[in-house]
């Protein structure tokens, strides 16, 4: 399946790139990251134009995010209830709502690229829970630019070796995501310790 899709990249060009990033932002199972890596590689060898690849990928992703946001706005609680009918989806939606509530724009930004499995669900949740559009749009666009830059950039750098690019992209993003969670938990532990110390001082 992968090779069939990859064979379409030079043939359909930037249209395929934009279409897949659009669909992936609506939670449809398309290999958007792999296609961006491949397109970056084809751009590096002169088979595609880098600015066009990057622009198409970003435009598709931004359009997909706003489509998801709009769907959430229109569907509201009914859409959320429907999404939560499957346990796996319900978990993702639940996390998306919680993250959005706790971190707002930062959750929108990070769910574009670092915790990207949450991305589409954050879009729906933001729309459905009345998250303001103007607080959504900027971190959303910055996040998608980051996402596109990482994948198209790695594809460009590792042109001619897509397996290496995909493998290293997985490791780099896994490392960043796990590192971010570790850092967050570490800061929380520090806070807990400090609160504990204050409490024991007060009771002393």
């Amino acid at each position, binding site marked *: 399946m992968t090779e069939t899709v990859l064979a379409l990249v030079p043939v359909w060009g930037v249209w395929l790139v934009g279409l897949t990033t659009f669909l992936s932002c609506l939670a449809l199972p398309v290999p958007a990251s792999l296609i961006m890596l491949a397109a970056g590689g084809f751009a590096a060898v002169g088979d595609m134009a880098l600015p066009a690849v990057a622009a198409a990928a970003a435009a598709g992703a931004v359009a997909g995010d706003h489509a998801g946001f709009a769907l959430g706005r229109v569907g509201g609680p009914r859409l959320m209830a429907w999404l939560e009918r499957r346990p796996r989806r319900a978990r993702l939606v639940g996390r998306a709502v919680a993250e959005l509530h706790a971190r707002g724009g930062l959750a929108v930004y990070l769910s574009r690229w670092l915790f990207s499995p949450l991305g589409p669900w954050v879009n729906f949740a933001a729309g459905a829970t009345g998250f303001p559009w103007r607080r959504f749009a900027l971190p959303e666009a910055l996040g998608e630019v980051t996402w596109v830059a990482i994948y198209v950039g790695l594809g460009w750098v590792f042109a001619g070796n897509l397996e290496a690019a995909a493998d*290293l992209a997985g490791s780099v993003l896994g490392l960043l995501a796990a590192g971010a969670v*570790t850092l967050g938990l570490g800061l929380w532990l520090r806070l807990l310790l400090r609160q504990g110390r204050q409490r024991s001082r007060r009771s002393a």
Partner: protein
Amino acid sequence: MTALARLWRNHRLALLAFLAAAALTLFFAVRLIVSTVYWMQPEQQDRAPEGWMTPGYVARSWDVPRDALRDALALPETAGHPPTLAEIARGRDQPLPEFLDEVAAALAGLAAEK
């Protein structure tokens, strides 16, 4: 009482979550180093040609000049999008595996000439 002991007694779950996340970070760091070393080996850099690749892509992979590969395979100039190796084979009425063997041989020859 040390900070660690206090966390263990009062916030065991949070501490365990932190340790698990730290272990996962370490895992990805090691994996990144291992795969970087792996992909840097010269024999891992020349990828076998496949149908979805373009002549430019395999030329880059094998670090040979694109035009030299074009000449070696007698590829015609094409208008429109860059053809994949599968499309070129179709255009020549040649089975893909046979054409890929030819491409691999041409790449090996050009790489040896360097």
